[in-house]
């Protein structure tokens, strides 16, 4: 059985940051494995540990820098990684949902996985759509926002819980092959062990250009164009208590006493 996991390197923004042009300035960004994908990787690795002959392959769209993040997924137990990148992706303004789905689908078609795990969303763009768009492209079934997975590979069925709003969960059976988008909390992602990190260095990480996956640079054409990025004007009218921790805590304490939360 082969499980393909989509892994994204997401940008995290420093407390102090600068916008330059249509994006946040590189100097204000740090990169990490997408939180939701971390849970997807863990889920796949757990399945591979509980079953014989399971291969876990990660797929990432991203520049060379992303390899640090990919190695992290390999260190946690993925067997092998594919990274898609080339000049036209590098020069694209941004990659929209459809472009990402098309790129990932091209890799999935080559890999021919039994199912695909993807994070519910990426922490930076927060589109929350790539996994389901990918499923449609592949002609796979799918389920979005999955927080529990019980796999019956022989029966070709995944029994999942979808986490709806307001503490309600939906119990659904999904025919395989399928794309499941994984919600945080489904498991406890492991830390990469030192041994895992060492082993990850030797695991295969294959870089594919558009040619290699049978696409050309028209894949980046998009009717969606980013036109502006700005810091929103704070709608808030918060009163800020300022000073030393002792002073600010004093202000808050006084406020709570005024409100009658605590006496005296």
């Amino acid at each position, binding site marked *: 059985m082969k499980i393909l996991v989509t892994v994204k390197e997401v940008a995290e*923004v420093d*407390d102090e*940051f600068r916008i330059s042009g249509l994006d946040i300035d590189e100097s204000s960004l740090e990169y990490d494995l997408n939180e939701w994908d971390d849970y997807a990787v863990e889920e796949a690795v757990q399945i591979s540990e509980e079953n014989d002959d399971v291969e876990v392959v990660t797929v990432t769209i991203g520049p060379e820098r992303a390899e640090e993040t990919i190695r992290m997924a390999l260190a946690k137990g993925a067997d092998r990684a594919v990274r898609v990148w080339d000049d036209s992706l590098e020069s694209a303004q941004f990659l929209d*949902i*459809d472009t990402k*789905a098309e790129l990932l689908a091209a890799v999935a078609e080559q890999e021919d996985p039994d199912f695909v795990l993807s994070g519910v969303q990426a922490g930076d763009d*927060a*589109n*929350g*759509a790539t*996994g*389901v768009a990918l*499923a449609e*492209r592949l002609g796979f*079934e*799918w*389920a*979005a*926002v999955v927080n529990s997975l019980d796999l019956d590979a022989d029966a070709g069925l995944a029994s999942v819980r*979808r*986490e*709806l709003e*307001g*503490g*309600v*969960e*939906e*119990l*659904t*059976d*999904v*025919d395989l092959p399928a794309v499941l988008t994984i919600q*945080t*909390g489904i498991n*406890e992602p492991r830390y990469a062990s030192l041994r895992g990190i060492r082993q990850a260095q030797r695991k295969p990480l294959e870089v594919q250009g558009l040619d290699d996956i049978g696409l050309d640079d028209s894949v980046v054409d998009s*009717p*969606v*164009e*980013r*036109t502006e*990025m*700005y*810091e*929103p004007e*704070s709608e*808030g*009218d*918060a*009163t*800020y208590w300022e000073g030393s*921790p002792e002073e*600010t*805590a004093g*202000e*808050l*304490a006084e*406020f*709570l006493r005024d409100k009658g*939360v*605590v006496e005296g």
Partner: protein
Amino acid sequence: MTVLAVAEHRRGEVRDVSFELVTAGRRLADDLGTDLSLLVVGGDVDGFAEDLNRDGVDTIYTVDEGEEFNHGVYTQAIEQLHAELDPTALVTPNSVNALDYAPAVAESLDIPLVTDVIDFEADGTVEVTREQYGGKVETTYDVDADQYAITIRPAEWPKAEETGDAAIEAFDADIDADLGTTVNGFEEVGGGDVDITEADVLVSIGRGIEEEENLPLVEELADALGATLSSSRPIVDNGWLPKNRQVGQSGKVVTPDIYIAIGISGAVQHVAGMKGADTIVAINTDPNAPIYDIADYGIVDDLFEVVPELIEEFGGEAPDI
């Protein structure tokens, strides 16, 4: 020409977000100078259509297939009605269920999709606004296409309240019964010992607490205040607090008199659960954290400095952590 909006219901009731969808959909239709059509699929469609008949809706299409949400039924119904009406815009809520069908529908119809839209302006093409990087920035996108799909963020538009006089039409969708997914039921989670929705004062902790070993600090504060301890999602995901303490979209909606958000950034799914608090106090090191957009009072500082002082103010003793 029309704007086609897809309503949502669950367990026999139209969800609030559907009425927000009417407001947003009407505005888009006005911008574009077109009609607003609604689609409601499954369950008591006639009853739902009656509820959804709000001012500004021109036509409500009903597809009487299935009881609850199944994305197989939804995708087929939407795609077929889309082919029939040829709408400029397909609009859905940015709900868990819409995220389970909208991306597939957009791919299948080969139209661009933009999710979690917080504002838009349309004339000819549409320009949409969304948030990125955890709400620290806003971006605008120009969608240059004759047809497109957007999902709108819940609670950004007011609910349409006034009754309307829409035409109600049953749409005869041809649904292939081989759906690929079977919904077997629902389950409520997160019951248990404490009901955070009943609390007058909540001390709520987020990822800023860093480690489970540090939790006694906020527990002590809650004790000193006679408050109840709640949290953002990562604390529950980590298993540091039980699910019934989680505030937010997938947790509990709380409306205390005072909500003290400590080390919580204020992600949209968290805010969905606590923006109804009377007074919101935030303690966060990041002056740009979105929580400050809705806070009434703020302390931009390290919680590990401020909370111990606060505990002492009330005669407690900050635990050694």
